[in-house]
């Protein structure tokens, strides 16, 4: 579930508040948004994809909080990593346009 909003990276655009399908974040006037309803997070990773500043981190466990810290994430380089893999963001090629996605679909039928 969602665990980190990086105050250092967040640009207070509140895009995460707008796009979260399960209404996890609250806007805060004059500050960065807060994770107000962490238990409602469905671990879909969409907030990360829509965050223009790579300021969010969704941990893979949907049932328990891992307690990972921003400092650890900066060190491991995991923060922002999903957007890069999907090819969203300036100068990147979206994975949708890669033929290997089609090849995989043909093989796996998922």
């Amino acid at each position, binding site marked *: 579930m969602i665990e980190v909003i990086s105050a250092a990276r967040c640009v207070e655009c509140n895009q995460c508040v707008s796009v979260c399908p399960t209404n996890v974040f609250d806007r805060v006037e004059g500050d960065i948004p807060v994770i107000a309803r962490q238990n409602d997070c469905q671990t879909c990773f969409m907030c990360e994809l*829509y965050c223009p500043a790579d300021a969010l981190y969704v941990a893979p466990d949907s049932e328990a909080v891992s307690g990972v810290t921003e400092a650890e994430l900066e060190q491991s380089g995991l923060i922002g990593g999903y957007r890069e893999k*999907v090819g969203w963001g300036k100068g990147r090629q979206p994975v949708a346009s890669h033929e290997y996605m089609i090849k995989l679909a043909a093989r796996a039928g998922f």
Partner: protein
Amino acid sequence: MPQHTLQEQVVRQQTTADVLVLGGGPAGAWAAWSAASHGAKVILADKGYLGTSGATAPGGTTLLVIPPVAKLREQAVAARLRAGGYLSENAWIHRVLDQVERNLELVEQWGYPFPRDEAGRPLRTHLHGPEYMKLMRRVVRKAGVKIWDQSPALELLHDRHGVGGARGVNRLTGETWEVRANAVVIATGGCAFLSKGLGCNVLTGEGLLMAAETGADLSGMEFSRQYAPSFEGGTVTRGRMLAWATLYDGAGRPILRGDRTFGSIPELLVKGPVYASLDLADTPEKREFLRRAHPIFFMPLERAGIDPFRDKFPLTLRYEGTMRGTGGLRLTGADCAASVPGLYAAGDAASREKVTGAISGGGAYNASWAICSGSWAGEGAARYALSQTRHADSRELAPAGRHGLQAGADKPHRLEAKPLIAAVQREVLPLETNYFRSEAGVSAALRRLDSLLPELGGVIPSTVQGIVQSREAAALLMAGRWIYTAALARRETRGLAHLAEYPQLDPQQTHRLILSGTVRIGIRTESVPHARELQLPAEGRAI
């Protein structure tokens, strides 16, 4: 943090439209685009956000595309009819195959970056969820549709002429809204019981409940026994990736490997823990290909510190409810009209039996169905709304909702949504009850669900979250009761319907089961056009 308090019965934002679309997944997006393209003034309201909401957006989907070669199409249709227990309709499968090709051409024209083969032909067989739904948002907006995000509908409006709009609430501002519209499209998805499959926790069945409260019928609710594997604690349910896996038991002994391992997991998991390792991807090239092709599958594993090609990681199952089942609102015609005037249904909120029969649509059938049924429902709703002489705002419309709403509160206790949801989940999620269905087990679970009904009469909390969750709890409870009621009425095994006491297919039951009502559930059968083509082998085995 802000807690919005709602003034009971004060509707802050009131407006009219020709067509109101509820739901912002693929089916809702296509319905809104289609209705607007046919000249209707359209509002689309989604509980979350058109672009991120629903089962499709966070993942991706393969599409059912079969070249327009008569022989191939006939083969596909015949195979589907057999697999679906003769409950599908060949004409509808042909319609879907024709329509989805036309719509995918549009998707490409609108800018979706389909890769091309060496001859330059576009390969339109797969859609990446985030990219697809980002595009659909742009297309829907450009068509002139007003998009209301974070705006769950809570109940429909109706009068003696049928449905005429809906009421809901904006989750961010706390303002209530009312849209009067002569046609409403329910595209709210299936009901997955908050089981944490990828993107599926928004699929809580309110659309089905809202429609049923106006008298709409449901069909196929018994075909709802699908569970999808994900790694333990995770949400990514891409079971077909296990085609590259070996499954291991708790002692590290291999059990199964390769294709179709995922279908065996319920049987294995009731015996003990099951681990998977993608060790059939045995070269660096294969591993690199898989990693790069499917980030949503590999990224969470990587974050969890698992090397899926080497490590053995524990699996769990996520119940997929009616989402990957086939049941939903009964459609009465080619325009995807539901059984109440002015009401239309699309995508997983609609019964998909006409196309998939008794078995799961799977990703491919369901994705193509969402595109086609959305287009048809949008067009049908637009034509209906534009042909009405009575304006929606001059109708004497009343709210139709009751269960889990303040209008239905007739008891002194406070409605506590979370414990109620947990109580429903205890009856619906366990494999022992819902996958390994038996008359005894399902009857007992249904009795326990019935005993929860009085809880819905409690006083609704005044916060936005409290209001929305109370309604979700009511919808989950009703959906569970519909599923088990239908499951007990089909005394045979056919497709996704199964009862231990009736392990075989019964040709006499080659019909659909139609449910209606909420507290008291009525049940009847509906005949299907291909029932007489069903031929059983001599031993009469299940299909």
